[in-house]
């Protein structure tokens, strides 16, 4: 396992370099710059600003400067938020997104796996139909609509939960529920399909014929073998959830980093765009590595060396 982690860590360096390089080129190719504003600035002032941020240097030099800073862990400066570095911005926002994303992930797995399992066991019955309808709704209804409905139902109508903001644990429930809706539906569908497939295997029939109760067979044997595909999608899912959701953060006024994936581009905040891309890539690499490790626990046939 140590070898796998080391190999992945070494691989991460060229992957991140490629992400950095491609993003660096793309953000500079897009028309419009960070200092284009409604009030066009006199050329002398534009020159001062560009000099301040080294944007007056040749692009190749800017690129080398950026890589140099990046190698020291310095993600650069924000052109939009003049008094804050990208490190400052992300160190404020990232923990919030991790908290919200982890809650949503927990809800998605803790609700999605039982829902999918129940649906598979009760295949073709009312419960299956109910679970799958719910998950189809979860996949097809966009989160801004889910969020708006939850705000209206639980916040305004029943006054059971706060409408928005990020003040106390109670404030976290609605955004976490909203964010978990889609992944929960995915997990439920995937679990159902996988459980159904495993239930057809000979050894399940053997287990049942040896006298094991249906519940024990499902929980101890079927479920464990069914989880491989679910765990597979947990890698990218984790990356998506803990780097924040623009929509959910937007409608619930959550101060996470999801917004920067959109606003940094709108503002042409070059270093912030680069940082969000790099962090996303890094988390994807880490979570996929964790998924690979998890495989070995679920299915002894999978060996890390392969």
């Amino acid at each position, binding site marked *: 396992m140590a070898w796998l982690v080391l190999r992945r860590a070494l691989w991460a360096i060229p992957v991140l370099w490629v992400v950095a390089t491609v993003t660096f080129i793309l953000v500079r190719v*897009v*028309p*419009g*710059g960070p*200092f*284009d*504003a*409604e*009030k*066009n*600035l*006199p*050329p*002398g*002032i534009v*020159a*001062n*600003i560009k*000099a*301040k*941020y080294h944007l007056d240097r040749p692009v190749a030099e800017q690129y080398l400067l950026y890589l140099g800073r990046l190698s020291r862990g310095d993600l650069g400066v924000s052109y*939009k*938020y*003049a*008094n*804050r*570095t990208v490190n*400052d*911005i992300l160190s*404020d*926002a990232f923990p919030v997104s991790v908290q919200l994303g982890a809650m949503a992930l927990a809800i998605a797995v803790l609700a999605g796996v039982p829902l999918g399992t129940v649906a598979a066991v009760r295949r073709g019955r009312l419960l299956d139909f109910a679970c799958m309808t719910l998950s189809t709704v979860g996949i097809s209804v966009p989160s801004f609509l889910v969020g*708006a409905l939850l*705000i209206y139902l639980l*916040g*305004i109508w029943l*006054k059971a939960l*706060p*409408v*928005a*903001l*990020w003040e106390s644990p109670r404030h976290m429930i609605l955004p976490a529920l909203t964010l978990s809706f889609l992944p929960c539906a995915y997990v439920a569908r995937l679990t159902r399909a996988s459980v159904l497939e495993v239930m057809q295997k000979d050894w399940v029939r053997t287990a049942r014929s040896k006298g094991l109760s249906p519940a024990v067979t499902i929980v101890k044997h079927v479920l464990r073998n069914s989880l491989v595909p679910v765990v597979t999608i947990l890698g990218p899912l984790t990356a998506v959830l803990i780097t924040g959701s623009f929509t959910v953060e*937007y*409608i*619930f*006024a959550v*101060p996470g980093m999801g*917004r920067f994936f959109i606003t940094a581009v*709108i*503002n*042409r905040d070059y270093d912030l765009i680069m940082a969000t891309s790099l962090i996303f890539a890094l988390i994807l690499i880490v979570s996929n590595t964790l998924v690979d490790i998890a495989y070995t626990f679920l299915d002894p046939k999978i060996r890390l060396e392969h």
Partner: protein
Amino acid sequence: MNIGAEPPSLDWGVTTDSTSFDVISNLQVGLTQYNGSLQCAPACAERWEVLDGGRRYVFHLRGDVLWSDGRRLKASDFEEAWKRLLDPRTGAQYAYYLYDIENAFAFNTGRIKSGDAVGVKALDDRTLEVRLKRPAAYFIYLTAFCPSYPIRKDVIDRWGDRWTEPEHIVTNGPFLLKDWKHEYKIELAANPLYFEGEPDLKKIKMFMVAEQSTAFALYENDELDYVDNRSFSTPDVERCRSSPQYHNVPLLRNNYIGFNVTRKPFDDRRVRLAFTQAVDRRVFPAILRRNELPAASWIPPQLPGYAPDSGPPYNPERARQLLAAAGYPAGAGFPVVELLYPNREDTRLVVEEIQDQLKRNLNVRIELVAQEWKVYLETLHRDPPPMFRNSWGADYPDPETFMNLFTTYNGNNSTRWSSSVYDRLIEAAEAEQDAGRRADLYRRADRLLCRQEAPIVCTYLSTQNLMVKPWVHGMEFNSLDIQFFKGVTVR
């Protein structure tokens, strides 16, 4: 309250946006401050003299203005602030607001290396002298504008970029920056050292809720006491229009369609005049539904120099005659022209209406081109299309902020229209010290711009829509859209 977004910076020497100014205007005070009628009233300066035909200002500071750390305000705090704004190393976008000061331009653009020659000087602790390179009657307004507020150089030197954080910042205004959770909330607290007395309002929470419907739900749940356009969707405005909590304020923001006059067919004045008389501006409030004020002239009604007849009348018959005279009878042979607009719901509604009216009244075809905001800005600055939709908001309540825009030398004049007559009128108005004569000069320039030359078609003035809870008293709204909280009470 909801300010809708994170203020990009609370450093008043660097920031340029209205969200930051909303906060800074309550933290800090300059030489003067706006009164209810948007005139400059004494603030840190108890009085001032305008000397040498408007070329020299001498400000006499109050002796009782304290910074939040207890230190007394000095005239040198202003000198240092203005020189920092102009220092090229600061990279301040609004440095050009001080270009009327002697040697300010030269210092900011590196033509002189030292700020010593810049015409702002603390003569002693309570006297500040400002020398202008030419008379500029609007200059006094800049002393109420955030970028001209004094700074504590020692604080900035000590903390660097982090000086605006609550634990470091030192201010002199009615409120103190108590807490700042970035991207989420700012808390202000009443300043016991404020020279006009500690405000009644002890605490202000400014949330940064971007989504309008969420913010409005918070208002309806009594979690916000005051909301404005940032929290107010058009359907909500419609629903609340008759509520006693609702207020509507016309802003000093004028919206227009510009022509690139260097491009055919708009190089022909008759075509431009035809277009400007073929637009019925009365429909805009019905389309945009925020009580917008139709406007045919560039100077808004709130400012001196405004005259109801400066703008062209709506006269489709006359418009058709003008277009025929230009060689396009009933629109025949008129090329399809592009109208560029930033991709937003409100701007789309406006340009679609104009497209429709021009088709009906002049039988000309307009092709609408939407671009993302920054792409649109770059297109506008680099290579303006034949027609574009744009707007301009005032930085200070003086016609100059609007009228200078269409001078030959203004970098924001995307029409590329150039008139030496217009330029001379504006220069004369800038230097004129007599208010009546000055208003008259702007009136003549406005008429030339909107009615005789028409490089633009003025459309409407934007409005601010607000809701205030009944327990909040003393809120005063102004057309500059700056909200001061020092006189507000909650009961």
